[in-house]
């Protein structure tokens, strides 16, 4: 006997015989290829979609409310769980926003900047590999899923060597990084980077000229540039529409102004063009990390900014000097008090523009923290993008937008 409960059978939005010969179907919120908990209510005319209403909020965990009840350092691990595929890029975006609020973004030591940039680009590779794996699985290419996860695991091993976690890294702190790179890590990294381009060629060999892949991706999910601008697209969704805009180039942060890399742009505006961009971006990330490896050697070993008002001194000072210990105690028990004001700081995460808006009232707790998550805006475009496509294309379009529900619902 089933447990007695109040839930009725769920057929109220499913009607087969309507006068206008349209069918309403419910997609999600628990669907294997919705990349999370997306619920779509689709109105079909035959197999064509007439109207699509995305429904989100099934992973709303109240992170912005949590931020108002936490001191700044306390909130940092929570940002891991937003875009959980590339956790460091969230940590970094938050830490960078707080540094901007405090006005100490130039105090961050160079070694910390090198480590941060390496981690950011490694996270970009991990995220893009994961995107390719799940997207290929949705389209039906099971073997690409297995190959991509193999490479992703090697990258996760590197991250694990550095910070001890596979998924939720918390490897960036406000004002620097907590740890230096372990011995031999850069050598392992270069071995990985030497191997990766061959693997990318393998994926492209499997997919580029694959007839099924091309037929399901070409001229599907076309986003014209005006539409992309009006819907606030960013990242690859914007560059896939022929607009060259990358925050790493245009408003450079960390070491990106010293590095040499290209911004790939596709003018086809469809899913296939975006797929090509993802592959090209992985190559560019490899190129960036290769330039960063020699930079590491001529940096001083300092890892955290020396701003005693906001950031604890190194452990050695805390253990030996009374004043540092007092500062550390106050910063841990009460938290840092940033100046009154507000900042909006954008960064280029693997998904697009990840921005943090912080309003501070001079208290240890932020008065308001708003996350500008790229996936949120890329999901809202579905209501304009899906009508006119076939039902089978829904999955590939959702796949090519690369949405993650942790940061949509926050």
């Amino acid at each position, binding site marked *: 006997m089933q447990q007695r409960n109040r839930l009725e059978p769920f057929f109220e939005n499913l009607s087969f015989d309507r006068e206008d010969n349209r069918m309403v179907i419910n997609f999600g919120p628990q669907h294997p290829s919705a990349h999370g908990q997306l619920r779509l209510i689709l109105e079909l005319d035959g197999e064509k979609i007439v109207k699509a209403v995305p429904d989100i*909020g099934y992973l709303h965990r109240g992170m912005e409310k949590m931020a108002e009840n*936490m001191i700044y350092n306390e909130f940092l691990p929570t940002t891991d769980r937003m875009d959980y595929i590339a956790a460091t890029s969230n940590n970094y975006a938050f830490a960078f926003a707080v540094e901007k609020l405090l006005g100490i973004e130039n105090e961050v030591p160079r070694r910390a900047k090198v480590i941060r940039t390496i981690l950011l680009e490694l996270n970009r590779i991990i995220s893009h590999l994961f995107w390719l794996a799940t997207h290929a699985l949705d389209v039906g290419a099971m073997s690409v899923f297995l190959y991509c996860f193999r490479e992703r695991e090697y990258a996760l091993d590197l991250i694990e060597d550095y910070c001890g976690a596979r998924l939720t890294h918390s490897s960036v702190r406000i004002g620097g990084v907590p740890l230096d790179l372990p011995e031999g890590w850069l050598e392992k990294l270069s071995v990985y980077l030497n191997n990766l381009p061959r693997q990318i060629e393998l994926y492209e060999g499997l997919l580029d000229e694959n007839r099924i892949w091309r037929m399901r991706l070409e001229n599907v999910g076309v986003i014209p540039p005006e539409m992309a*601008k009006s819907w606030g697209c960013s990242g690859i969704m914007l560059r896939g529409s022929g607009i060259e805009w990358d925050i790493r180039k245009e408003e450079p942060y960390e070491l990106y102004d010293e590095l040499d890399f290209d911004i790939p742009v596709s003018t086809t505006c469809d899913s296939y063009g975006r797929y090509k961009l993802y592959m090209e971006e992985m190559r560019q990330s490899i190129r960036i990390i290769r330039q960063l490896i020699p930079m590491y050697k001529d940096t001083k070993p300092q890892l955290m900014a020396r701003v005693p008002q906001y950031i604890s001194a190194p452990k050695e000072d805390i253990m030996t000097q009374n004043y540092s210990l007092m500062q550390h105690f106050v910063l841990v028990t009460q938290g840092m008090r940033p100046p009154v004001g507000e900042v909006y700081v954008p960064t280029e995460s693997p998904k697009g523009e990840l921005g943090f808006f912080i309003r501070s009232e*001079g208290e240890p707790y932020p008065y308001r923290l708003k996350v500008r998550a790229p996936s*949120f805006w890329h999901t*809202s475009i579905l*209501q304009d993008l899906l009508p006119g496509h076939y039902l089978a294309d829904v999955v590939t379009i959702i796949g090519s937008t690369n949405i993650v529900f942790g940061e949509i619902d926050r």
Partner: protein
Amino acid sequence: MMRPYRPKDNVQKKSYYTDRFWVAPKIPKIDVKEDEVFASDTKKIKEKFDIKDAYIQRGQLVVEIDPKINKDLLFFLRDELEYDMLMELSAIDYLAQSGEFEIFYQLLSMSKRKRVRVKCRIKENEAIESVNSVFRSADWSEREMYDMFGIVVNNHPYLKRLLMPDDWVGYPLRKTYPLQGDEAAQWYEIDKIFGKEYREVVGPEMRDPAYINENDTNNFARYKHEVPKGAPADSEPIEIDSFNEDAPLVETFDLKKSKFVNRDR
């Protein structure tokens, strides 16, 4: 001992100690003339609109306006000044201080590589005009703002709750809303699935994730040996490892060695 006074209009966590003489520093507001692009933009805006204040904060232009002209100003910024993307839109709750909400629009100009923040303040019961016709991306942000703060947006095509369920009570991001929710929030899933009469059976939420209780054999809080679900706490433990993994699954029947058993006795 006196119970400490907690203000009802802001129930968020506050610092337990602040030095009496401590004055919070402020992020400086720089004059718009420091930056050429912002100076000319502000001049053009001032020619057409009546704005309250304009300054540069941390490299971005901030324009404070009256809420009535928000749509016209955004149209002007988009068409004339090339601020053609809306990157962020949300509100801040200042009900405790002045009974107002502050709404901000974060714009980006890709051709000028500049960012502008337009801010306006509305009273609690006022509504604001939708900017959905200027930027389509405002659609969901305004819905989220309505969901989280209860700010009504006029002329919005589909103003409904976005993140919370439709039958949710209260507006979560207001300062009067506690972090762990009001009563309706705490019993929401029980009321919906089992009904209100099951509240007592299931029991209240345990809000301490580190809570342990050796007598609780129903839930996660037990820390001693495992017993069947709901059994008394001191009953016999389940021995998961008692199954002999090495024993063969099947036993071959050897006819030669076997004997017939006389069933008739």
